[in-house]
């Protein structure tokens, strides 16, 4: 009995020692591997706090977590259209720009700033851009002809089984918004359409090819590992895999094609939900990432394109990094693309149904 109590109390002490942290905590809801842990650590040290990062795999689940109160967050990093929905649902605080001395509109890439200004009214009051990018087609050139196939046909590789040679496998993103968008791009329709016909056609297109894999960020790993030949990805996914391969001395036979003429351009933003408890600290966090040095360190680690012009230019000046970021798929500024708008819950559910039906066949 005595032994039992002493073992028990030892374990208890161990747990308390490991788990206890008296520092103030800032809760961030973000995407997988979307923040450089070193930059986070620097923030933690400067402000004497601890940052707890929760990872979501989709915009919809982010919205859900905030609305149901599944988690308490001080900072969330949704995409453009989800910010629109959150504002509509009255979930976000207006940013206090007095607390964001590092913020200035002029800092951001002019193309991006144009998109922000054209976006829903007041969006600039709620969200500060974090990274931006496009959709891309990642492929592995291990099998001959894949590169030409993708570059010549662009979106059609996902929807025309006739052009895909025997043995070439294709993967689709398991997010209804993006899968449907790819179909709409292929069909030359508006990405923000509300027309039933467009969605019917999109569904028909998605049903044509039997995708070998439906995934989110595991698609890039499959392509890099040659378990998949072609996949729909976000532009930064490719660079993530590229950086990893370089860091680990791996052979790189994969690449990405970004359609410059018709595409989706997106930007993720840092927002503060109304349920945040550490509002000032949250602003400090946003401010921290608006600082050029921090932003540069962050962008050098993450495969996505930074929204701050001077940061991007600094990357171009570094020889090693420049080699990687001059890839045509990196910078979204020259791409003719549409930004998603929030189309309402009904259409969101319609897109989900489309995906469910497509998977069944």
């Amino acid at each position: 009995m005595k032994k039992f109590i002493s073992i028990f109390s030892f374990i208890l002490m161990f747990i308390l020692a490991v788990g206890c942290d008296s520092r103030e905590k800032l809760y961030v809801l973000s995407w997988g591997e979307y923040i450089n842990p070193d930059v986070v650590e620097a923030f933690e040290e400067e402000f004497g706090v601890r940052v707890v990062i929760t990872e979501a795999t989709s915009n919809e689940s982010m919205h859900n977590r905030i609305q149901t109160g599944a988690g308490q967050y001080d900072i969330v990093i949704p995409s453009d259209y989800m910010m629109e929905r959150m504002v509509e649902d009255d979930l976000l605080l207006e940013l206090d720009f007095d607390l964001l001395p590092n913020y200035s509109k002029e800092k951001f890439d002019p193309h991006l700033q144009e998109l922000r200004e054209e976006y829903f009214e007041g969006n600039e009051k709620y969200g500060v851009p974090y990274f931006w990018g496009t959709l891309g087609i990642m492929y592995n050139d291990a099998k001959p002809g894949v590169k030409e196939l993708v570059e010549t046909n662009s979106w059609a590789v996902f929807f025309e089984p006739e052009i895909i040679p025997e043995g070439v496998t294709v993967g689709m993103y398991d997010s209804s918004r993006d899968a449907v968008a790819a179909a709409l791009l292929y069909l030359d329709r508006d990405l923000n359409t509300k027309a039933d016909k467009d969605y019917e056609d999109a569904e028909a297109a998605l049903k044509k090819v039997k995708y070998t894999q439906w995934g989110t960020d595991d698609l890039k790993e499959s392509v890099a590992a040659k378990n998949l030949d072609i996949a729909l990805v976000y532009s930064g996914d490719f660079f993530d895999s590229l950086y990893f391969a370089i860091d680990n001395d791996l052979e790189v036979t994969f690449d990405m094609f970004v359609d410059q003429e018709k595409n989706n351009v997106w930007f993720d933003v840092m927002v503060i939900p109304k349920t945040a408890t550490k509002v000032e600290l949250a602003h400090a966090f946003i401010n921290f990432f608006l600082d050029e040095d921090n932003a540069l360190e962050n962008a050098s680690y993450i495969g996505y394109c930074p929204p701050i012009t001077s940061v991007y230019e600094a990357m171009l000046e570094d020889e090693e990094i420049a080699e990687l970021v001059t890839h045509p798929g990196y910078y979204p500024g020259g791409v003719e693309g549409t930004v998603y708008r929030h189309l309402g819950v009904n259409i969101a559910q319609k897109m989900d149904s489309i995906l469910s039906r497509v998977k069944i066949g």
Partner: protein
Amino acid sequence: MMSLNQVKKEKVVKKVGSGLKFTFLALVMFLMYFPILIIIIQSFNANGQGTDFGGFTFRWYGEMFKDTNLMNAIVVTISISIISTIVATILGTLFAIGINSLNSKRRKRMILINNVPVLNAEVVTGVSLFFVFKTFGILIGNEYLLGYTTLLIAHIFFSIPYVVLSVLPKLNEIDKNLYDAALDLGCTPASALRKVIIPSIMTGILTGAMLAFTMSFDDFVISYMVAGEEIKNFSMWIYANQKLSGRSLVWPKGYAYNSIVTLITLFALIVYNIIAAKKNKAKGKA
């Protein structure tokens, strides 16, 4: 009397029979063990991605201890399993004794309710608990309750039914008169419980405890839904990292931890067997 040929035939059939049995068991064992062997091999694989064998190394075992996230997840898993098993075993045993004393109708009803968590889809149980914790949180003014405590409560919740299911049959087996005999000999109900009932159902209690521990140690779905933001158990750690296979070499560390667990379990089993064998020998001699 059988002829020589018949005897020979029987011997051959027996041999073929045991050969087949042996092969069958070996195949099943291979099916079950192959993934484990791969896990153990990969834990020593210098090639962190596991795509090829890059040489033998102990690197991952060392790095495992340096990975704070992984270590925290392991501590959570082990501590939650131990604590929830202890609590669930004690409560489960008492509850089983309680249920056993009820009249037939009430007994059946309680057993029915008891079995719901066991058979219900884990997703549904997880969500139910999430709803309850959320609602409770709102009622007491602290909405964001999810954390170590809710995880612990959830584990206790789904472990108790297994203990009850292990103890009840044993309670049925023991002599009904044992209790009355104990009282006749001067025991109070409390000490009858301690000195008579519990020892006679001990095997059921231990089985229940083992079952509870196993269910808790490996749990994913329910933990995922009630653990909240900050803490993860080992399964949640795997789930979080299975998608992030891109940048961080986390898998080999997970394999290393798991290999250690497998070895400890195997070791414990072998030791137990040796002790049991020794006890039997002693019994035989005495």
